[in-house]
């Protein structure tokens, strides 16, 4: 009498199965696509976001046939060398930068103070204040622009619309965005860090300037960058409050009817490049430092292992 082991049975059962075959290329492709469907759509969204930027950069190298820079004609870097000679563009750029710097400074200070009050203190009327901060973000720009214009007209400032009124308007709509950004940073702080400082006999002032403020600073920097880009790129509200002053977006708008020259695209491309450098360099350097630290750590560990 022979006993059948479990292994033998398993082998018999396996032998009756059809032989295993690698799934075909079609099956594998379908499976891969199904498991990466979300990423596929995400890539599509990124494409949707970047194609117009690509077009802006590409057409800065174009020599437009006729007035309108809509169809590709000929490659040239002439717009890149000519851009600094076009006083309309350089003047509007200088004005935009002046307005953006001033409004960013004021909005960042005012917004950061509010963010600290909301994030660090208890007080009455919090709901109302939250609403007041949310409203400018939730109001269409046309409404804000037109209401500011009626205010300036009522104050008889119609003749002196320009640098001052544009800056006033830009500060107004930037404050809320600064508050929201800095508040998020404050809310994300670990309260134990401040407690530790206090436990180590730091007074409130020292704790704030040595612990709290440095930790919130990245949020303040991000908020000021946001405020700068909001101001620099604003068209709708500026259009109502500018009078005869021409900021860069106002220049582009005015040039639109007679054809936007490729020089304007050069400015757009440079802004994009600068922004990418400003945000990407810290990220990349952080990674490089981390990678170097890892490799140093690994070689130190190796050295330790061999010397034993």
């Amino acid at each position, binding site marked *: 009498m022979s006993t059948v082991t479990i292994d033998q049975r398993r082998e018999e059962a396996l032998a009756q199965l059809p032989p295993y075959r690698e799934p075909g290329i079609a099956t594998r492709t379908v499976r891969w696509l199904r498991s990466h469907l*979300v*990423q596929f*759509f*995400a890539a599509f*969204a990124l494409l*949707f*976001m*970047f194609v*117009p*930027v690509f*077009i*802006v950069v590409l*057409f800065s190298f174009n020599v437009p046939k006729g007035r309108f820079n809509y169809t590709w004609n000929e490659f040239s870097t002439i717009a890149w060398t000519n851009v600094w000679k076009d006083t309309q563009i350089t003047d509007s750029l200088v004005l935009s930068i002046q307005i953006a710097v001033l409004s960013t400074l004021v909005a960042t200070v005012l*917004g950061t103070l*509010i963010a600290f*009050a909301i*994030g*660090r203190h208890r*007080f009455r009327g*919090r709901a109302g*204040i*939250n609403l*007041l901060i*949310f409203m400018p*973000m*939730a109001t*269409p720009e*046309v409404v*804000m622009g037109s*209401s500011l214009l*009626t*205010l300036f*007209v009522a104050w008889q400032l119609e003749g002196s619309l320009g640098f001052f009124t544009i800056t006033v308007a830009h500060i*107004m709509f930037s*404050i809320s*965005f600064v508050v*929201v950004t800095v508040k998020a940073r*404050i*809310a*994300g*702080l670990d309260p134990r860090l401040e407690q530790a400082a206090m436990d180590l006999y730091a007074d*409130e002032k020292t704790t*704030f300037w040595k612990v709290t403020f440095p930790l919130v600073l990245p949020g303040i920097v991000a*908020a000021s960058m*946001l405020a700068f880009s*909001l101001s620099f*790129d*604003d*068209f*709708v509200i500026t*259009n109502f409050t500018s009078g005869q002053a021409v900021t*860069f977006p106002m220049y582009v708008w005015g040039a*639109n009817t007679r054809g*936007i020259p490729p020089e304007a695209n050069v400015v*757009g491309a440079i802004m994009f490049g*600068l*922004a990418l450098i400003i*945000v*990407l360099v810290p*990220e990349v350097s952080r990674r490089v430092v981390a990678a170097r630290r890892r490799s140093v750590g690994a070689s130190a560990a190796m050295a330790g292992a061999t010397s034993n």
Partner: protein
Amino acid sequence: VSAAPAPGAAAAAPADDTARQVGTHSWTPYALLSPGLLYLAVFFIVPTVMLVKTSLSSGTAFTGDGTFTFSITDLQWSQYSDAFTKYVIETPIFQKSLLYALIATLLCLLISYPLAYTIAFKAGRWRNLLLVLVIAPFFTSFLLRTNAWGTILSDSSFVVSFMESTGMLTVLHAIQTPDSWPTWLQVLPDGLTGEERVLQTPLAVILGLAYNFLPFMTLPLFASLERIDVRLIEAATDLYSSAFTAFRKVTFPLSLPGVVAGTLLTFIPAAGDPVNAALLGATNDSLMGNAIDAQFKATGNYPLASALSVMLMVTIVLMVALYVRRAGTEELV
């Protein structure tokens, strides 16, 4: 227009939980608040009150002595009936603005959700980089980018000839309001697109709106998706739900605060935007933003323009209040 809360901005925890008494004086918060709030009071609340006041006045800026007469006992409601007749009954500009903004918001949600989901759950060490990429287009002038859509959607472009040869344009052109409908319902009289063109049709404007406000949708969505405890989704799949059911019953409901914040931050500016209609739309296809702009700058009829602004503002506030109540999220900022 071109603004987005910084990454994680909408992720702010309710401030009351973390607020602690740090300053020793009870007046400290008021001292911190007052400069900023005073600024907002003078340059946001006062102008809004002025706007309402102007909408109830008579006179135009360019004729007569250029002043407006306002009297509290003799409120000029005629601006509102004028605005209603001109921009709702005779030409459905008001309804069209809301419709375009609504479609653009839905498109934005469809496009942004997979992107926000990928950044939150699948990006790994690429997360920060992808977040930067979401905001990066912002730094190229928004007018230049909108104008670039003119190139992408021009009649001879690859996109348009593809849409034409696949018959998409025929279908999209067929989406239109029937001629028999009254004028106030003629929101799409000539179809969503032309038979052979996309530029200077409603679709171009809607695409432009969806494009311009995309980061406003993506960032709040990301912020709320990022806060979801992944173990909840794992629990759903452990309990034999399919990936789709887990998404429908767990992930999506948990991301609703982001959906609400994102749709509001997209819909509101889109409803009042004058730029996309001016750069991408047909010359006769103006929206509320263009109407307000024209009444202010070309006609100088400040009272009528103010009435239009107030109409838009009130409608938006009502819609937002209803929507927020239905969605049940109170914390927006």
